[in-house]
């Protein structure tokens, strides 16, 4: 369980960022689900409830999602169910339970770059951008790959389009962490294959995606290329060998699912 010396509920994002950067041990309080598992000693905890960041808005070109939007909002959002074959809603729907999803937030999960995250895998298969207060707006991929720098994640943007997508995962118990997860999408014959919980976080299988885009429709072969180029590891939930084998199956199925959808 973490401890707080002080607690602040700022009225503006600027204020939130300012206090965040004031001391090394000042921290953002997101959903707090993971925070309460550890024993961080936080100086000033910055609570973002007053910043009106809990929204999903359909703009002209993007779906804009505030950082304090809960997973349950993602799951039940009409907009997100309508686009990309509802892949975002599906991806988060397996996580623990409704009450848990009413607590955990988009911003916290994405900022933390969790390896096991189902959401990040799905987002990475779409054209997603994140906005950081200092770092500005950038593609999700760039954010995931850049070195850690303390900042405040405020919004994510998903480009609207006719992109088709599918999500897959393997879990033992239905409310457990995933053993491995995948997301596959396609727009105008350009494919993107993503795998996460490897146990490392979501990554794009670049070569496999390119091969599929180039016209190789031997799905088994594409999936095999994907798992060759991605790295898999062993942890309590599975060995590297098993993860790789299952990932290949999930990618095959996800590609087939996308090929079948409208």
């Amino acid at each position, binding site marked *: 369980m973490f401890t707080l010396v002080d607690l602040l509920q700022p009225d503006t994002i600027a204020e939130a960022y300012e206090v965040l950067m004031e001391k090394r041990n000042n921290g953002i309080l997101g959903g707090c689900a993971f925070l309460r598992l550890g024993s961080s000693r936080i100086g000033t905890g910055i609570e973002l409830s007053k910043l009106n960041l809990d929204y999903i808005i359909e703009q002209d070109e993007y779906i804009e999602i505030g950082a304090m939007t809960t997973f349950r909002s993602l799951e039940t959002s009409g907009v997100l169910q309508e686009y990309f074959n509802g892949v975002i809603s599906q991806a988060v729907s397996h996580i623990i339970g409704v009450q848990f999803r009413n607590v955990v937030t988009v911003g916290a999960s994405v900022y933390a770059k969790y390896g096991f995250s189902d959401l990040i895998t799905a987002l990475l298969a779409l054209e997603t951008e994140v906005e950081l207060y200092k770092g500005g707006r950038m593609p999700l991929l760039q954010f995931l790959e850049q070195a850690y720098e303390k900042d405040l994640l405020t919004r994510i943007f998903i480009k609207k389009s006719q992109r088709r997508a599918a999500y897959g995962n393997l879990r033992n*118990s239905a409310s457990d962490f995933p*053993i491995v997860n995948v997301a596959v999408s396609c727009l105008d014959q350009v494919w993107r294959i993503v795998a996460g919980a490897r146990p490392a976080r979501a990554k794009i299988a670049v070569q496999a995606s390119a091969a599929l885009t180039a016209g190789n429709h031997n799905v088994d072969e594409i999936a095999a290329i994907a798992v060759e180029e991605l790295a898999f590891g062993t942890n309590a939930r*599975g060995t590297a060998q098993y993860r790789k084998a299952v990932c290949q*199956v999930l990618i095959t199925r996800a590609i087939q699912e996308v090929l079948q959808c409208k």
Partner: protein
Amino acid sequence: MKSVGQGIGKIDGMAIATGKPVYTDDLVMANTLIVKILRSPHAFAQITKIDTEKAEKIPGVECILTYKDVPNARFTLAGQSYPEPSPYDRLILDRIVRYVGDEVAIIAAVDEKTALKAMKLIKVSYQVFEPVLDFETAQGHASVVHPEADLHCNFDIGMNQGQNIVSTQKVEVGDVEDEFKKCAFVAEDTYYIQAQAHCMMETYRAFNYLDHTGRLVVVSSTQIPFHVRRHLARALQIPASKIRVIKPRIGGGFGGKQTVVVEIFSALVTLKTGKPAKLIYDRKETFSCTNSRHAMRLQVKVGADTEGYIRAVDIQGLSDTGAYGEHASTVFMVVGQKTLPLYNKTRAVRFMGDVVYTNKMPGGAFRGYGATQGTFALEATINKLAEQLQMDPTQIRLKNLIKEGETSIAYHGKLLGSSSLHRCIEQGKKLIGWDEKYASPVVCGSKVRAVGMAVTMQGSGIAGIDTASAEVRLNDDGNYTLLIGSTDMGTGSDTILGQMAAEILETRMENIIVNAGDTDVSPYDPGSYASSTTYVTGMAVVKAAEELKQKIVEHGAKFLEVPPEYVEFDGEVISTLTSDREISLTKLAELMVLGAGNLQLVGQATYGSPVSPPPFIAGFAEVEVDRDTGKVELIDYVAVVDCGTVVNPKLARIQVEGGIVQGIGLAMYEEVRYGEKGNLETNSFMQYKIPCRKDIGNLQVAFEESFEPTGPFGAKSLGEVVVNTPPPAIAHAIYNAVGVRINSLPITPEKIFMGMIKNK
């Protein structure tokens, strides 16, 4: 029957379901001290120095106790009748710590934050020893977990401290080696069952205070109030008469609370400070610092003749009891006791092996109590044998299982009083669709569906040992009080015992006040474990109610001035057979407590059974295995149950469904993992996955009633047997689906997947 056999709702149901404050932590008085425990970070070590000076100075800290502050007499924490078969190997706080989490210091403060702050300031130095972490290499390990000279055993259970052996057992009838030589078919295998965690929703907790006469009152989430009282007396070195133990509503136990886990620590604080104190274990402590199922390795060999009669069964076991020996020898004994009698065409049977100490959290009592582990190993081997014989697995059971009225060489001439197991198997086959499904697994794309099955037995109370007393009192206003010492942990035992009394007294449940679980008030009862409450306490209730009824008739007749044979009692009125005179029960009750009657009427009985009649279950599983990933979906599970007469069909059904799901958890989802240094990694619901709603598929439960002549209204028991069939039935179904035999639980998708690869 008007009460027995009815699906009556539990008398405490509405209160507990709507969140009324009736559990231990709801009853705590103001200004109660909070107790926390400092725990060993090492699996095996000796405390060389412990300094509490700084910690004691923190404002709000009331006391800090270490091994220097506690009595030096060893005891056991096991909830068992005295003299306990478990070793007296515990001290309240020991200088030697024997597992990661073992207690080092007791801290009491005005609130939790202060207690935790003080805990951080206690300085402890340890001399760390090489821990014994693998039970398969515990025997003869250089490290001796219990070297102390003052370890005491009430019985010779085969304790050999120097070898880390707690108990060595051997039971043999006939000559197994000889019989195997004659068998045409022999199947054998080795199985591993894990240290399953109870995961009852209410963690361990107790609070205590000194009452108006200076006695220690303990309110605890326990299954064993009388054993708690006895162990507290011994450990704290005060007379048992100075202790009162009360069990309020509790949130589940499953056997975990058949060990005295928290009570001694917080009681000690009250004795030292004079103040009320409470100790609540969080979920992490509940996982890692209490007790679990005994992990075991079982090697089973079964042999059959050419006609398919099973002639020999041999079970060799190794059980891991962890750092302390509660329930060690008895759980192990039950492995053979509740398996070997099943197949009674045998000419030789044997159960043997050892229980060892290791430097891990202790094993304890857990629903099934050895029969669960034994059932998995034996039934999996019988299924393997059936395949060799090319016999339908249900056929081999029907041919070889013991029937009502028969004996078994393991029974030494005693006859089985009741059984409908053969009907259970036939009924189960119908419900799952066995005949259509067994021979032909259905393939659809990458998925294969198949079925499997297993049978099991348990006991009803411990023969010759479990003894319960009950009292029924006729109150001045004509209703009754039923006094019992058994412990309803959610099962509804308070309710069904009330149903039994209501049946005998021919009255409504509303007229019976059930008072249970208070050692100052209740007649003696071992507590609810060993599947004894319905059968043993139930019989005591029946006899007590019958005695009271007899007295009502006698005294009613006296007032009517006729001999007792000339009256009848219908539950409300005592009337002469000629119907010319009558007296109401209400009037009789009123008169009996006044000068006219001069005798408040009470019925009392003590009952213990010389037999432990087994309940039986036939379990059938239908699974769907994804051949590409090894993932298993449970499609259907059928359990057909023989528990004798079903006292309350609604509650009985839930017992079976709940037990099956715990069995499913043991079979497929619950995994116990330790780190290299002996720390339990699976110490939360996040890491240790009990089945959630989506994990279980459909469950079908049916009852095939037999009639047990020695049981109340023909009832046996139900509480434990329900957990035993899923692991072997599911393992069997998976084998039938994809040809992979997994002998170590849990059966995970990866194990199946790797098994399929190996087969290629």
